[in-house]
């Protein structure tokens, strides 16, 4: 009975409508926003689990809303890759939401929840969209909601960061939209599945990919288009920084990956080499910048730039071992989401505690705020890629692919990136043990905020043991097979 209900329900639609409805409710009943928000997130986690069960039992989910197929109607599609991204969003989102219930004062909470739930609905819709124009709409919605969140707390830095972010994200979307126009002109459809069969290696395809790739790379802050990210992510409120770094960035990556796998990979013309090169530059440059920072949140933001680089290293490797490499990248995205969210939340705790985020003055937080220090340390372990952690699994699989293919330059980048990550993580942790020259007064940090950060970090560690269960789920519907085919 229950199984039949799970198998027949339209979980994908619930995943979009539920947060949307909750956003409206939070707007109307601001006092209950915290409760509505956390309950919605919990329901979403369950819905994602149900969707996962559904597509594992019955294969990929495909649904044309109202019976209208693309291009006029809106098609929904869910396979293992969608499931992965939805899981990242729901799980990390739940942790951040629990944190946010303690973090925001009533007034800010009333603004945070509707925006965050709107962001959530847009992200879920993005991961379920089956055509490139809906991807544009959802991408734009994600961007606008994210910008509004970044500006939430006000203040010079946050507003400037949000403005910079808005310009970058609009520019990125327009470039993407121009690409959509060209693809539609060239191949007469916006449906990804149709485009996959129609696409031919003609100039319009390459121009479209160039535009779309550049636009998405800008949204993902791929070096050298990363200029907007550190200031924006560092100046936002802690839960918002976590959302931006852990979740929003992944939306653009998902689109790029989807387009690549379905449409562009067979006609790439060497683009993967360029992406790999930029990714490598991001790993090295981002890590070095992170190492130079004296402020914790900027360090974490640059670490995001670096870690995203790893996702691009997968492109050149995927031409020979598609599925394995994309599994690795997916796993890295998942672990990064949890670990980076934990890191930003831990940084938020430290700022609440000491009123600053200067690394040199952390002042014995290991003793004074042990759960937060633990959260940062465990998240750091996963970011570095030390075993046992999700980051280790992802980097091991990438390393294995690079070695098997004899791509030594990528091997060096992968390992060097890990070493640099170790350097910047332990730069913070070392200071967490020592006493600062000036002893500061400290404010209490709510236990819920400490535990939310710690549990997310533990999740990133736990992923180190869950690969045998998660990797097969990612493969439902064979989302990664296309790129294995090379001309």
């Amino acid at each position, binding site marked *: 009975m229950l199984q039949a209900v799970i198998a027949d329900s339209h979980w994908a639609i619930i995943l979009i409508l539920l947060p949307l409805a909750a956003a409206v409710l939070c707007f109307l009943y601001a006092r209950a926003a915290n409760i509505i928000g956390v309950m919605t997130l919990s329901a979403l986690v369950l819905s994602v689990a149900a969707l996962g069960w559904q597509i594992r039992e019955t294969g990929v989910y495909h649904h044309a809303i109202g019976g209208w197929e693309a291009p*006029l109607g809106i098609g929904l599609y869910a396979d293992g890759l969608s499931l992965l991204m939805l899981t990242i969003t729901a799980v990390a989102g739940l942790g951040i939401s629990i944190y946010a219930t303690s973090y925001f004062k009533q007034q800010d909470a009333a603004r945070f929840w509707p925006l965050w739930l709107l962001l959530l609905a847009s992200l879920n819709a993005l991961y379920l969209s089956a055509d490139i*124009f809906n991807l544009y709409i959802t991408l*734009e919605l994600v961007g*606008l909601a994210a910008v509004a969140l970044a500006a939430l707390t006000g203040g010079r830095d946050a*507003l400037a960061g949000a*403005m910079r972010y808005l310009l970058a994200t*609009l520019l990125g979307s*327009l470039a993407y939209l*121009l690409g959509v126009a060209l693809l*539609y002109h060239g191949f007469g459809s916006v449906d990804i599945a149709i485009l996959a069969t129609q696409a031919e290696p003609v100039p319009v395809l390459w121009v479209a990919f160039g535009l779309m790739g550049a636009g998405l790379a800008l949204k993902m802050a791929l070096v050298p288009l990363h200029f907007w990210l550190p200031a924006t992510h560092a100046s936002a409120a802690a839960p918002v920084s976590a959302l931006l770094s852990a979740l929003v960035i992944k939306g653009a990556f998902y689109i790029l990956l989807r387009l690549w796998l379905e449409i562009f990979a067979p006609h790439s013309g060497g683009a993967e080499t360029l992406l790999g090169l930029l990714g490598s530059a991001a790993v090295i440059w981002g890590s070095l910048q992170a190492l130079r920072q004296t402020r914790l949140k900027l360090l974490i933001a640059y670490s995001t730039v670096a870690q995203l680089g790893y996702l691009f290293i997968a492109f050149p490797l995927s031409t020979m071992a598609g599925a394995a490499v994309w599994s690795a990248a997916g796993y890295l995205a998942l672990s990064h989401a949890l670990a980076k969210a934990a890191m930003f939340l831990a940084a938020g705790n430290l700022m609440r505690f000491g009123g600053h985020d200067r690394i040199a003055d952390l002042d014995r937080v290991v003793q004074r705020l042990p759960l937060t220090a633990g959260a940062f340390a465990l998240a750091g372990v996963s970011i570095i890629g030390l075993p046992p952690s999700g980051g280790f699994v992802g980097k091991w699989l990438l390393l294995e692919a690079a070695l098997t293919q004899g791509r030594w330059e990528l091997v060096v980048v992968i390992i060097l990136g890990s070493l640099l990550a170790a350097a910047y993580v332990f730069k913070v942790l070392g200071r967490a043990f020592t006493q600062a020259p000036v002893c500061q007064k400290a404010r209490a940090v709510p236990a819920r905020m400490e535990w939310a950060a710690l549990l997310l970090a533990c999740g990133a560690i736990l992923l180190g043991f869950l690969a045998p269960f998660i990797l097969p789920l990612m493969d439902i519907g064979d989302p990664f097979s296309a790129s294995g085919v090379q001309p």
Partner: protein
Amino acid sequence: MSSFSFALAGIGLFVLGLHALIVHAHLLRKILAINIMGSGVSLVLVALARRGGDALPDAVPHAMVITGIVVAVSATALALVLMLKLAAETGSATLPDDSPE
């Protein structure tokens, strides 16, 4: 006038807007630049909807453009609000140069 030249004009607007977005410091000009780029993309979409000869133009890109306009309006509204807030906070409608330290 073929539809192709309209599409080229659209591309021209896109490039012009991009140029303005980069060189102008004032945020209002940047926001306008983004809008001009958006118009350029719309023009491309509409122009390319006409597929040769006397056949009726494809309606789908028109639908896309209408959706795009809605998105552009809300994005512009958000950008303007942000600009005003920033101007109230810093006294000038430009992006501060320094990164937060």
